[in-house]
């Protein structure tokens, strides 16, 4: 897997996060990080289950874990976190070009 600056190591790190968060349904990449050589940050869309028990806590936890990962690998992650229902409306400009990074089987 090779999109712009996205590496196999990053994919493995993100999939590791995914396995530890069962309420996280999918992770997608989009934006300049995946298309150009001069990205400002790495845009990720995280889709979480509609019936997550505590969406606010989940948002905080995901933000924290990606902040820690970003500091470790020197990348600024810019997260958009949406529920499945919100995601279904395809609200992002680049929704048609989302790059699947990690999805539940």
């Amino acid at each position, binding site marked *: 897997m090779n999109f712009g600056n996205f590496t196999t190591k990053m994919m493995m790190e993100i999939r590791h996060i995914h396995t530890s968060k069962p309420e996280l349904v999918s992770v997608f990449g989009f934006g300049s990080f995946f298309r150009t050589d001069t990205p400002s940050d790495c845009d990720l869309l995280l889709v979480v289950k509609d019936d997550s028990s505590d*969406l606010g806590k989940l*948002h905080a936890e995901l933000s924290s874990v990606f902040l820690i990962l970003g500091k470790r690998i020197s990348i*600024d992650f810019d997260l958009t976190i949406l*529920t499945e229902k*919100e995601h279904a409306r395809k609200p992002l400009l680049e929704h048609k070009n989302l790059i699947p990074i990690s999805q539940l089987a």
Partner: protein
Amino acid sequence: MSNGENSWGVSFSRIAWLEDAIKQHGNVSFVKRHDDIVIEVEQNDGTHITVLCLDEYALGKAAVLRAFKEFPEVNFISVGGNWNGYTPEAKELCLSKQVGLYNSSELTGALWKDEFWKFHYKDDDGNPSYPYK
């Protein structure tokens, strides 16, 4: 890029822009910022508003619930510039709690209202129009 002083990744330029815009508003008599992204505002009639400064292209329900948990005193959430917005779920949740949820195109109009959480533009048919994502 985050300035490292808040856990929401809001840059200083975004915070400074919002703080300045509120200070210059004609219906605002007092402004004080704390916790990097929280701005206390008093309208001319004494109504107190606690604004949370965010910068989100598409603010969803999960982010609103996190904001409520981390900043229970907040009753106004700014999502940032005109190109930013929010989902219908996020707006409905905020309306149910009498919390304003706006991007910068709506900011000025909302601050003129006593019931600031109810402000909205109208479409050609007179229906509420929101910067939904």
